[in-house]
């Protein structure tokens, strides 16, 4: 769905295999300051001005009223207490809970699991037919196109008019009256998650298909010879053997959910009311539509905090590889 495949997990093999060899003969023994500075200067300047400095600024601004985006009155944790008492952000008082952060939880649970399940089933089943590559390409196409285009495609499918919206036209065949998929608080999140799933299954299929194919043939064959059913092969052999790629994929999809913005903004603008907001949408809305910069910064910091465990995990994992 035009999502960036977030580089959640560093590539393993090339680094590990190469580091030792590279260390042995990595340039002259003496540090070469001149080259280092010249080659790193453009990246360094941009990283400092566009990432490092803004991140620190935003963290500080989240403790400030931040009128107009500049430092004014310091308010301590006020932005955060207001944020977490805002029912549009998180409302645990009702059942089911609601709010933008809760919607992210719904996305994480239903989007991630459905994408992985469908990706796995499609990759295993497509491997049995000759037109496997075609199926994978068809499912993968939505990854190439913009979330904005995806949103238009599905707004059209969901249109309430039975002469326009395919889904309601199908329902009318069974004499079911049209459903306002994007206008009903009770169904809007499910409808959006379905679009997200449609957009991402191709990604999962391609990754898991490669993983399934790397399972040694003999293992599956010997299980079949011993009389294992296809179901047993799937659940007892294939799934356990691709559990690492599945967890990598899950992390990537969760990161995508936390950054999810374009699709929601174009399809529903967080509506009806505030029913389909997600955290990245709230950040944009508070900062740039409501002009609440301190408050918007607090939302951005919450996004960062949610991602920190994954960042730490990545850096740790990467460091253990780099220093072997």
């Amino acid at each position, binding site marked *: 769905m035009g999502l960036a495949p*977030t580089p*959640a997990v560093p590539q*393993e093999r*090339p680094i590990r295999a190469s580091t030792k*060899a590279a260390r042995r003969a*990595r340039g*002259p*023994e003496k540090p*070469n300051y001149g*080259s*280092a500075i010249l*080659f790193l200067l453009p*990246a360094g300047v941009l*990283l400092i001005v*566009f*990432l490092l*400095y803004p*991140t620190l600024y*935003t*963290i500080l601004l989240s403790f400030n009223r931040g009128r*107009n*985006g500049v430092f004014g009155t310091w308010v301590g944790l006020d932005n955060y207490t207001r944020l977490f008492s805002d029912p549009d952000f998180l409302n645990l008082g009702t059942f089911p809970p609601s709010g933008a952060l809760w919607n992210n939880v719904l996305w994480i649970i239903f989007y991630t699991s459905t994408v992985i399940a469908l990706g796995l089933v*499609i990759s295993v089943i497509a491997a*049995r*037919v000759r037109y496997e590559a075609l*199926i994978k390409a068809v499912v993968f*196409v*939505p*990854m*190439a*196109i*913009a979330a*904005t285009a995806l*949103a*238009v*495609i599905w*707004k*059209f499918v969901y249109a309430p*008019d039975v*002469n*326009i919206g395919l889904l309601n*036209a199908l329902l009318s065949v069974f004499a079911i009256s049209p459903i306002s998929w994007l206008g009903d608080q009770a169904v809007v999140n499910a409808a959006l998650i379905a679009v997200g799933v*449609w957009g991402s299954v191709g990604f999962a299929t391609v990754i898991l298909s490669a993983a*399934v*194919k790397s399972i040694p*043939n003999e293992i599956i*064959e010997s299980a079949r*010879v011993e009389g294992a059913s296809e179901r047993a092969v799937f659940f007892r052999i294939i799934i356990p053997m691709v559990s690492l790629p599945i967890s*990598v*994929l899950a992390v*990537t999809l969760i990161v995508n959910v*936390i950054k999810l913005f374009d699709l929601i903004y174009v399809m529903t603008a967080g509506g009806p009311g505030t029913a389909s907001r997600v955290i990245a949408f709230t950040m*944009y809305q508070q900062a*740039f539509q409501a002009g609440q910069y301190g408050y918007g910064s607090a939302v951005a*910091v919450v996004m*960062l905090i949610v*991602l920190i465990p994954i960042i730490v995990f990545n*850096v740790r994992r990467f460091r253990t590889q*780099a*220093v072997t």
Partner: protein
Amino acid sequence: MSALAETMAGSRPRTPAARAVAALNHSVVHVFLALVAVIWLVPTLGLLVTSYRPRSDIQATGWWDIVDLRLTLENYRLVLDSQGMLHAFMNTVFIAVPSTLLPLAICSLAAYAFSWVRFPFRDTLFLIVVTFLLVPVQVAFIPLLTLFRDVLPDLDLTGGFVAIWLAHTAFALPFGIFLLRNIFITLPPDMIEAARLDGASDWRVFRQIVIPVSVPAIAAYGIFQFLWVWNDLLMALVFVQDNKNFPMTRAIQNLLSQYGTEWHLLAAGAFLLMVVPLIVFFSLQRYFVQGLLAGSIK
């Protein structure tokens, strides 16, 4: 033929009953995959057909009603011309090309330093770059806009394209550097050593050895970055503030909020947005998938 399919063929059942069961299973497989293909093709196909139907027909009957299908290019003419989509298309090109070439150049340079130049704290610095891989762009929006507005008001960066070029470039760096460094570091050390013994400077090693042998990987990353920028809406919302510079994603968003049910315009507009990524996808599929998957699988 896939490994799994060969396995299947190798253990073909022998009794007639088992063969019947296998045939049934196989038709279940075909039906399932046909269903998958339908679900993944029909929504896009519907919009494609709609983009060629006259407005009055769209309002009257569904696109699946192919009995009296009439086609026209009028919608594309309208959206390109009076809705300014041609202009927006050019803006998208004008945003995407520098926002692809700049990161390619800057990431290659930095990745070379991180893999083949010796200097203190190299690994620490690289880990800091890796740390920024997942930092959400949202944490940078407010300070950058404030910076452009208060410190550099005369440059009017958000009024032109400079702000979005720089923003796309900067936010691409952690991933680009990470990816290219992992590729450069796999080059054989002997090759680089030999060049250095011959007296080649780092610049020459970079230009004449590292870059030429890494072209496929750099191309895969370039395609990924190009499509990422082409498809972006969020950064354009924040960093492009003059509406004559709006890219297609913003133009379509505007169409949608102005004429939410004018499907003849929306369908044609959406396809104009999709056409370049689709061409890239179908012509460079291998590179494309590689680039897209580069960071996430082993």
